[in-house]
């Protein structure tokens, strides 16, 4: 198999192990499913047939990927440095913060209920801008303007989105 992977053999090896574990779980889950023989099901109509086949395919391809990664030395690179590259050091906290704020908004404030949608949206957009935009503005001596803009963007987004969806597009909001 030829491949021009941009990913390190170590990452490929780890993901291959995850695929193998996942494929095995799917096959096991499919095998343990009720065969519905009491309702006249045959092997061909058993509910676990297709998931079992797909699990087997993922398991097989996971094994192929593992072999390929091992040939590239992926399994021997665990001792190598796990230090983040400069780009990763920049990206990791940003992704973690975006993920955290996104989860707090979608799963917490909206998903858990209790807070009106517009207030949750205003809070999320405001906090997001304060986290990602405001530090740069403060460094440029525009801290006050940054807070004002975050308030305007947050309020504007909350109002426009709530109004448009509820009254123009007639979509029920969370």
């Amino acid at each position: 198999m030829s491949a021009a992977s941009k990913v390190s053999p170590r990452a490929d090896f780890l993901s291959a192990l995850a695929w193998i574990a996942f494929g095995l779980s799917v096959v096991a889950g499919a095998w343990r499913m009720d065969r519905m023989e009491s309702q006249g099901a045959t092997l061909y109509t058993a509910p676990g047939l297709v998931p079992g086949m797909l699990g087997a395919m993922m398991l097989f391809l996971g094994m192929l990927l593992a072999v390929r990664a091992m040939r590239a030395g992926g399994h021997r690179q665990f001792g190598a440095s796990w230090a983040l590259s400069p780009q990763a050091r920049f990206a990791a906290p940003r992704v973690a913060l975006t993920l955290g704020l996104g989860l707090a908004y979608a799963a917490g404030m909206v998903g858990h209920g209790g807070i009106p949608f517009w207030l949750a949206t205003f809070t999320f957009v405001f906090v997001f801008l304060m986290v990602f935009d405001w530090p740069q503005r403060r460094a440029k001596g525009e801290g006050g303007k940054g807070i004002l803009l975050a308030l305007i963007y947050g309020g504007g987004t909350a109002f426009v989105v709530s109004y448009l969806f509820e009254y123009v597009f007639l979509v029920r909001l969370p």
Partner: protein
Amino acid sequence: MFDGLIAFGHSIGSFLTPQSLFYVFASSLVGLIIGALPGLTATMGLALMTTLTLKMPSSQALLVLVCTYVGAIYGGSRSAILLNIPGTPASAASCLDGYALARQGHAGRAMGIATSGSVLGTLIGMFFLALFTPLLGDLALKFGAYEFFWLTVFGVVISGTLTGDDPMKGWMAGFLGLFVATIGQEAIYAYERFNFGNRDLAGGIALVPALVGAFGFAELLVVMKERQVPVKINPFDSVIPRVRDVLRYWKTILRSGCIGTFIGIVPGVGEDVAAWTSYAAAKRASKEPETFGKGSIDGLMAAETGDNACVPGAVIPVLTLAVPGSAPAAVLMAAMLIHGVQPGPMIMIQSPQFVYDVVAMMLFATLGILFYGLTLTKLMIRVLQVPQTVIVPVILVLCTIGAFAIAGRLFDVWVMLAFGIIGFILRQLNYPMAPLVLGIVLGDLMEKNLRRGLVLSDGDLGPFLTRPISLVLWLAIVLIIALKFDAVRNLFSRARAAVLGR
């Protein structure tokens, strides 16, 4: 022939209302902006717009979605030319010559070429959409359970092979998508699979929340991961397309239009492959291949014609086989189902007018991009200068509403978040998203037809392997997979050399 033209005329007439025209121009603009903003793709735009159009009449809703789709694929060229960043994956090929032209002070001309290429590409694709859909519809009537099973597998395999740079990972993503579609109650005994006692999960994973997550939330995480470069716009000349460019490169336009449409018809492959294939074909045919990548008008015209011709092409299998030709077309198909339109082999019998409605929608979408291509340059530059930190939270709010609004279930918001995280991790590990989406869309069709076929044949695999269309499909699948292995390729090379006596 004349029946088709009359039906097409009726369709055009039905959209010539102030409200429809407003939708055309508004949704083309939305599509253009989504396509131009790096990181936001046509698939995400369509998934979000599906939510907005839930309460609209089906023809209007689909008009909005088609215009958004065409607009987004065209819009990607703007950031490709002005910033050297493809707005959508489909515009990656346009960066090579578009940005080179912009650096030479010809950004306006490059945008004009993108406009003429996109408009003509969509028109060529639209012509084939009108021509091929009835023909392919007739062929589709010959498809039974065996053929549909192989077609779905073929779609996932070819999508996995062509949409990333690592076919094995593409296939894995495709099989994961097919597996996701099996979660929840199965169709014959209503047996609940992989739901772990969760009542919401027993209903299955809804397509739109999963797509909004995989293409929306995941893309936002990718956008935030990258360092935003300060936007520096090169000075540009007139954006009005030049007739001379069109006349001089008419062969490129025709060739790329045909290639784009054909690639669109192939299940799950999509606009980016269409653009690159058209670009490569233009380079091979050119008398000046050395200019490609250095500001070749031929190259830019080929890429832009190819990717936009792919849009109507990708809709052809949606209408005739209920198998999407690209990831955005998968969302369009989901939207059709939500709006009560049942695409598939029976469409030319049950609702032929709908096919011509879609052709007319493409025509209006073309008018939309032509209008904005000629007028909206300054606004687009302003849009490109909006910081990501302002766009990302707004899109995330829309993703949340988009996931929730389809069924009014908070569970779908969780699905969106889960698929966003999974999609982000898979992207970081170089797994393409298009096969995953195609798998989720086609999973149900694959399973139903496999089990139906096995019941019909009483477990005999013969019909799966010997019926003519099935035979062609499974041989194609085996060949596509086998040719990706070095050992098989070497064997073929040796065999060819032996036959040719070298």
